């Protein structure tokens, strides 16, 4: 499982765009509602052998 907290809508849109590709390999994407100050927590569940950078390079996901 990986998590990130994003505030740039363009980056959140990149995650949404990658969601079908992640689900295609058996992964899952949870995008929380924005906080009061506009931060969005995203949780990625990826099958073994995959990393976030393979789908959405450059975003600050970290393993949990």
């Amino acid at each position, binding site marked *: 499982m990986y*998590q*990130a*907290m*994003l*505030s*740039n809508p363009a*980056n959140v849109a990149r995650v949404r765009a990658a969601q079908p590709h992640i689900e295609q390999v058996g992964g899952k994407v949870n995008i*929380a509602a924005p*906080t*009061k*100050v*506009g*931060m969005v*927590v*995203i*949780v990625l569940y990826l099958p073994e052998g995959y990393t976030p950078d393979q789908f959405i390079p450059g*975003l*600050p996901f*970290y*393993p*949990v």
Partner: protein
Amino acid sequence: MRWFGWFRRGAPTVESTPVAMIGGRARKLGIPYVLPSDLEEMNRLDFQHFLLRQTFKGNFAAPIGEPRSILDVGSGTGRWAREMAQLFPSARVVGLDVNPPPADTAAEAGVNEPLPPNYEFAAGNVLESIPFPDASFDFVHMRLLVLAIPHDRWPYVVSELVRVTRPGGWVESVEATTLQHGGPAMDMLMDWINTLLARRGINFPDGGKVGELMRAAGMVNVTATDVTLPFGEYGDRTAKLLATDFFNGVKGYGGLLQGIATPEQFEQVVAAARADTASPQTGCVSPFHIAYGQRPW
């Protein structure tokens, strides 16, 4: 130490960032920072701020002159930014973090004294980007974010600090690295903490390399100073206060060490480390690293 328990008891505890109870403490989701996000920790961070301000004889080291705009990255409780706003009343001072400081919320609710009129909070995650245009600030400050920045993200973070600094402006970083000469129990405790941090890609020694990263990012007039402070009850007032800060903060790792140490082992090792570092024979020290540099014109 009960001080942390009563210091901010009147303030509301509004969280706008999702938190989860992990290891018995509330912690933020979505960022790799592992320490809790609760009232006790907020009070500890304020205590730490006062301790560092006194120890380093001020809130900054860089020759910033009279800045018109100041950014504090990872502003935490917001204490540093609010004090800078009072010190430089004609400057615009922005505290950047993923969550507004409780003191801001309390001020808005009329519980605390009003915020300085030239201070504001901005939401953002420095690991993603600093949400300001290039060359926005005369002085950009970041302190004790080593527990929040994964190793592979450091060059990007420093490049962001430089990007939002105007040509001729200053960037300053204050970081700490692993306690040294604390005896076998402290060494074991540090090993456990480093193992935990490594799971999130965080590398404690990175805190000592910010000066190098500033130079690599093209900054000039970079000054990097290592300050080694005595730590523990054996030492002077600063040493005692550093130990108070550390041993209150280290409780935040408890409950996160699954697969590394049991809660009982953790308690025993913390107690042993506290006893060892109280002894002058041990001579424990706490390394700090202050680096500042100027963005070229």
